């Protein structure tokens, strides 16, 4: 084998490897990308049945319910146009609270309940996940960042403003 031929084989091998990896990555991508829907999209039936997706919106005030002592918790996610009841079994994240934004991963059950296997409340100091903020903006033409930290008090209080 001449050096040139050898180099050709090397280059061809690398190209083949890269294309194979690319094809596999694209495939993994297509199968594993998770879509985000808001309650309005869910109630319009935009979600393919049985497919896992991420549901985002605000947790309705006073909707959090659990049977005493049970790990299963139920709450309602709303975008102020439509509501979706959610059921989740497990420990809720620290940042989860009524009146704040939430994103849950799971799928729809036949009775119209969203069964979450993961609840995320990862968001910034505005208590609003960016996808939820965008979705609310789209549905209402405004971002309801005012419905914020109702941690200690049931009534929403505005965030402390600096310089007051």
């Amino acid at each position, binding site marked *: 084998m001449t050096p040139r031929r050898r180099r050709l084989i090397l280059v061809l091998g690398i190209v083949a490897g890269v294309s194979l990896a690319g094809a596999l*990555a694209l495939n993994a991508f297509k199968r594993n990308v*998770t*879509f985000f829907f808001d309650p309005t999209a869910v109630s319009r039936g935009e979600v393919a049945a049985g497919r896992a997706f*991420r549901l985002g919106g605000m947790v309705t005030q006073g909707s959090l319910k659990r049977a*005493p*002592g049970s790990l299963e918790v139920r709450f309602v996610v709303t975008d102020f146009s439509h509501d979706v009841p959610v059921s989740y079994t497990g420990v809720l994240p620290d940042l989860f609270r009524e009146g704040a934004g939430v994103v849950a991963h799971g799928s729809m059950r036949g009775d119209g309940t969203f069964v979450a296997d993961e609840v995320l409340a990862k968001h910034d100091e505005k208590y609003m*996940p960016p*996808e939820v903020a965008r979705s609310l903006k789209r549905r209402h033409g405004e971002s309801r960042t005012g419905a914020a930290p109702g941690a200690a008090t049931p009534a929403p209080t505005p965030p402390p403003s*600096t*310089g007051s």
Partner: protein
Amino acid sequence: MLPELGHFALILALLLAGLQAFFGIAGPMVGRDRWSAAVTPALAGQAVMVATAVACLIASFVGNDFSVQYVADNSNSALPLFYRVSAMWGAHEGSLLLWILLLALWSVAVAVGSARLPPRFSARVLGVLGLVSFGFLLFTLATSNPFLRLDPPAPDGRDLNPILQDPGLAIHPPILYTGYVGFAVAFAFACAAMLEGRLDQTWARWTRPWTTAAWAFLTCGIALGSFWAYYELGWGGFWFWDPVENASFMPWLVGTALVHSLAATDKRGLFKSWTLLLAILTFSLSMLGTFLVRSGVLVSVHSFAADPSRGIFILAFLIVMIGGALSLYAWRAPLLKSTAGFELGARESFLLFNNVLLVIAATTVFAGTLAPLISDSLGLGTVSVGPPYFNPTFMLSMLPLAALMCVGIHANWKRGRLSDARRAILLSLLAAAVLGCGITFGIYSNGHVLTPVAMTIGIWIIISSLIEPLYRVRRHLSLPRALIGMTIAHMGLGTGVIALTTVQSFTVERDVSLSVGESATIGGYTLRFVGVKPVEGPNYEGVGGTFVVTRGGKPVAVMIPQKRQFWIQHQVTSETAIRVDHGNNLLLALGEDLGAGRWSVRVQVRPLVSLIWLAALIMAIGAAIAASDRRYRAARAAESAAGVVAERA
């Protein structure tokens, strides 16, 4: 008064950085050595000014000066002193200032360490570094000034984000940034070499210790971040493929490729253009990391800032820097020609595979990180990409990389005769397979199909790395630090592969509901819930749940995970309880009061998870040892002393 002084110092630093860039780049270009000589004083002045600005900001934090907007937003008079200092880099503005300070420190280190380099070349390096400083200083002053005053002053501050009130996070950004910024040095060396048209292998040799040192810091920084996420966020994982984590991981992957490609360029004068491109790419990804994290474009817990003007500025800056470097490359590319050849089985080939696979891994991470952003901005719907995508695609390039490494480590430069090493390769593989399968089926007894494979590869890496150093010790041959460092770093990688495999295959986690006096058994551990009691800290109050943990009837620990409510931001955080026992990390996170006297608690048993962070530390130590090799320090004398000289002891 102090904030104004800091602001003024920052403006002076900007001017001095501009001078540093001008003299460093223009001086050698027009052949004025006196201009080139002015670079060092300009750098010294810039560094002093930046340090002054940082000192002023820290003083404002320590002195609770809530007339400064940034202090009022990120501190509070009840915050302990330690966190008042670390709050300096707790948000966007301060972390940029930290970035600039670290860049100044790296530049000073380069100025001191490159005293033996040709003066024009080192002027160019410092000039390019000055240009980067200038850009970041301009960015800070124009869009993110930390010294802005608040009128009237706030009575008290809004407090540092409670999840950042932790020793791990106090030191994570400085170390991570030291790594990020360190790649600016490799970038500057590459640009200086292109400006000078001196594209032989000398620039690669001069860059190597700097790049390896930066890589060591980045490794430590990423590991610290992962450790912090594990114990502080309360979810108990060590890696979430969160965009911010990916933003630091991409420069790490490409930086690893750069470290290896520099070896081929240094030793054999090969892959010169590829190495230049990698140096540019690594630093670009470091800057992109800053852009992704700090502009708030990504959905992430770390994105505190959400001001698009900043993002646009960084984007413009990125385009200028990367575009400039790439144009320079296009201009100089005709000068690049490799004369050396190599055979298919030679070490060069394996380094090439290493580079290709690492870049593929970085590309898949890049695609997964940016896909949600692209999909969203094109109106294709809001999507998210998580572990189901990242885990398999990442493994797809990493497992072959690890296996090829075990063979390539025995290969010689230039000559592709692996037959000499065939016995060592096969024997080490056999030993690793026996051990790997033994551990998988003997100790842990179940797992995924890939578990024994990955375990074998991890052990194989460790054995393979040890073969050459042991051979040298037995023959009383010299052991250069570069070889010792490389061996340690590779063993660290093997350790990491083993730990990752164990954690991914054998983790047990469950959320349970317990009433006082009740017990639950998870992963062999029995925990009995004793009760909850209130706890109080300087700026929070909360509850702590007491659990008595036993294993097979024998007491292991009393663990008290806490739930804390911070007064100022009304934020709740989990203070997890962690105990290491028989190599298992037992993590408890207290959930909430479920009513009827029951509490929820998250229980995770992760075998060998501590080994992941230890592995990163081992890799970083190895890199540090390699970077301190004598042959890099004697820059000019090195030409003759290069290579490994056999010595009789």
